[in-house]
């Protein structure tokens, strides 16, 4: 008897959480724009740590995991594990698309002895727009300068990139009593495009 009551209570309150997602007001969405900017800041920090060759492999691998945790979870389609993509387009015409985890792992294993990554006070987030999945979608944009050097500090490679990240604010819970909704921010696909030439490169 107790078992059935227990299952009933779990189902009753559990399903209650799946209620339709109410419309978010502009003020709340503006708050989520700010939150997205904080997440972009976190991502930039993790990328700097991944590329920092003065750190231990363990620390850099942990930074990879932290960076990946900011992205949408992997999903299964046709029995294959799928994940957001990073598409890198260079001015010389080369374009490559790789899963986010591979992208971060590649950054960890770049051949340069020293890597210097610089960010700019220019990160912006577009307005959130509702999708048919009930989630809210935006795009975050930031600029990054990358320098790869040899042991003596000679510049071997440099680029300045614009990165656009698809952002999804997924409804995590609905508090009907309080009339509030909480959203969780996840990053999705990224486009990386270089804005070269950089003077001196």
């Amino acid at each position: 008897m107790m078992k059935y009551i227990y299952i009933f209570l779990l189902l009753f309150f559990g399903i209650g959480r799946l209620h339709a997602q109410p419309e978010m007001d502009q003020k709340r969405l503006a708050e989520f724009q700010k939150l997205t900017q904080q997440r972009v800041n976190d991502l930039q920090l993790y990328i700097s740590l991944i590329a920092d060759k003065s750190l231990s492999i363990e620390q850099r691998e942990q930074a990879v995991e932290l960076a990946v945790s900011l992205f949408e979870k992997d999903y299964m389609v046709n029995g294959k594990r799928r994940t957001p993509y990073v598409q890198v387009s260079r001015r010389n015409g080369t374009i490559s698309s790789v899963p986010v985890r591979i992208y971060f792992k590649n950054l960890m294993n770049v051949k340069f002895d020293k890597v210097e990554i610089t960010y700019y006070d220019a990160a912006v987030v577009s307005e959130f727009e509702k999708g048919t999945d009930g989630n809210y979608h935006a795009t975050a944009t930031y600029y990054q300068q990358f320098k790869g050097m040899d042991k003596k500090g000679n510049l071997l490679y440099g680029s300045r990139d614009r990165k656009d990240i698809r952002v999804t604010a997924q409804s995590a819970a609905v508090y009907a009593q309080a009339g509030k909704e909480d959203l969780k921010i996840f990053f999705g696909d990224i486009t990386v495009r270089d804005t070269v030439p950089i003077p001196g490169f």
Partner: protein
Amino acid sequence: MATNIITLWAFALLIPFSGLRAQVAPPQADTTRQAAGSTDLKKRAAESFMNGQIKYVSDFIDRFNNAAKTENGGENALRALFNEDDPRLPGTGRQHHPYASQVDAFVQSVQTAKFIIPKRGTMRAVIGIKVRCDGTPDTLKLHLRKDYTADSAAYWHIVRVIAPSRLLEEKGNARKMQTSGTRAELPPNANEVSFLPLLRGLDDYQSLAPFTHCMECRDAAWQKVESALQSGHMTTEAVISNKIYLAAGDWEMELGEFIREKENSGWLISDLVEKTKP
């Protein structure tokens, strides 16, 4: 028994609050961050091109509408929305091109009629996807449209397919295939990341069907591409072009993305079509 039921009710009442974690909580404790000895990221001041760049189509619409409403300086603001490196526009050492007269006529008509582009108006896109047909590189062109639902949501979907030339050259009808009933809708901002969600989706499903909602859009070219995707003869690699089309009065603007280090960059007008003229 009664005590047990009260305990269970109390437990069940707590369930809705389990979602309170994560977003409202401070960021994950990060030992790596502490080990690195830096908790703040040092950033340089933004360069002027970074602030001037038109980053999103919604930004373009805002700038266009502001320019259309402005009495003084509106014309210059409108002209700044064009790709200034377009060799058809007036410039040092450039010969006059009929496109320049078309741009003049467009600017004049916008200023006279004060066209406003609605943020949720008609928007379409044409993208080029680099594909391999039996190992040979080629380009697949897809026409997409952004639609809106009654509950204010928006999504992109495929409305037309232009098959790679190699597939069109193949004789015979497309192989009969089974298309799944799966329906997938691309997010409203897919255009801002070169439609990567679509590229990923084509790879996931090996089919155009989940992203093509209109049955009349499934013409012969669509069938050929669908057949090649399903059989594995055609694989997608990267999105190589991304154009957005917006209507303004009797005109249609083609927007291209110009990523470069100057203020005249980002989403800019790359072409114009006057609808009343063929």
